[in-house]
């Protein structure tokens, strides 16, 4: 049976893993390659690297980290942040990443999703959506690190993303991100119920039960989290034992 996935996410800035809160107050955490190795050994199912600087001059450092990580781990990993062109995607995949995650650039240029899905296959094109609640059962897509409201409806955008060829959708809830009070179940469920590709929940994990909840009540296929893993607030082996005890299929 297909297992639910646990995905640690690392925000990388100038060669270091960092952590912010609601996209602000960035703090240094660890060396990305070392942290990736640790998660690989602990039983993470996938990893995500986000290049949060994504400035042109820092790109070579980031690509070097991607390649060094690919040499050390034997689980899939996704790379996001600053991906704007087919060339960017090609570079990232050739450096050893398995999937690329596209966010703002897809909103500005939806053809990037369709063209890259044709060229590289849907399985490696992930549409990442930063969504914020704007009314009851209503969420808008935000871009530029959550600073700009596009007024696009998040559910409609997820459906369009699937139609364009994205093979997976990451739902990052700005409202719950960084608060450690649980994922945005309503938003995650609304999107998972409207697409036929895997959905990854992101933003708000604070405990094992939050993760169990989003995988069952909100129908997410995978749960992504950052600081709870970086600071050992959630240990992956214990988390998987807990999920297994609660009847959730996980790889152990």
């Amino acid at each position, binding site marked *: *049976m*297909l*297992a*639910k*996935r646990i995905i640690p996410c690392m925000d990388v800035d100038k060669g270091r893993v960092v952590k912010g809160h609601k996209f602000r107050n960035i703090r240094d955490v660890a060396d990305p390659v070392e942290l990736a190795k640790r998660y*690989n050994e602990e039983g993470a*199912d996938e990893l995500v690297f986000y290049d949060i600087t994504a400035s042109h001059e820092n790109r070579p450092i980031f690509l070097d980290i991607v*390649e060094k990580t*690919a*040499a050390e781990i*034997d*689980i*899939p990993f996704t790379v996001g942040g600053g991906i704007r062109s087919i060339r960017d995607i090609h570079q990232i*995949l*050739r*450096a*050893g*990443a*398995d999937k690329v995650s596209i966010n703002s650039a897809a909103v500005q240029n939806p053809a990037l999703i369709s063209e890259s899905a*044709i*060229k*590289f*296959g*849907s*399985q*490696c094109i992930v549409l990442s959506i930063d969504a914020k609640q704007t009314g009851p059962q209503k969420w808008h897509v935000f871009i530029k690190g959550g600073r700009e409201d596009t007024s696009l409806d998040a559910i409609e955008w997820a459906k369009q993303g699937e139609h364009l060829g994205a*093979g*997976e959708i990451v739902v990052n809830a700005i409202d719950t991100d960084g608060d450690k009070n649980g994922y945005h179940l309503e938003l995650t469920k609304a999107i998972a119920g409207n697409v*036929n*590709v*895997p959905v990854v929940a992101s933003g708000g994990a604070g405990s094992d039960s939050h993760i169990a909840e989003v995988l069952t009540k909100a129908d997410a*296929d*995978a749960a992504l989290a950052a600081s709870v893993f970086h600071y050992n607030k959630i240990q992956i082996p214990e988390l998987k034992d807990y999920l297994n005890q609660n009847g959730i299929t996980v*790889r152990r």
Partner: protein
Amino acid sequence: MIAIIDYGAGNIKSLQFALTKIGLDAQLTTDPDIIRQSTGMILPGVGAFRDAMNTLTEFDLPEVLRQETSKGKPLLGICLGMQLLYDKSYEDGESDGLELLRGEVSRIDHSVKVPHMGWNTLTHHNEDSLLNNIADNAYVYFVHSYAVSSYIPDDLISSTQYAGTVPAIVRKDNLMGMQFHPEKSGAVGIQLLQNFGAMLS
């Protein structure tokens, strides 16, 4: 030396890293001479079936692969690379494959999420040296939207369940396929690559 057929499809560096880790010398290549000198060949692949066949044809590789495998040299197809070993695929119309294994490739049923993405379990059907030290129910990492839909039952070594039985490991003599990514499947995947490596002389 293992020749990894490098026809421009996605992430193949991870495969080379995994082989290096277990002491197998591997080279990314499209050069027929290097492929002829190899002790074994791996056909990786992500992307679309037709594009992949077209690119292989541009490099005259279908013929080289047929010649080399007819001499008994092991060939392992991974993901799309496994699908390419078959007669034909219905991805975007209908395209002929390498026709090394009998069977066809079709889209995964729409009753489930497509792509089939993530860790799923293996159920073994036939004894095989590829399965040495691989437990029944071991998890491996899949990511694909198409799957081998008709095949010769004797060729099926191991399968997984996703809207029905999905061939996961197939083998006919020196021709082998893995629908999942052994290079992305943790310790289980490394063991599978080691089992493949053990066949090479």
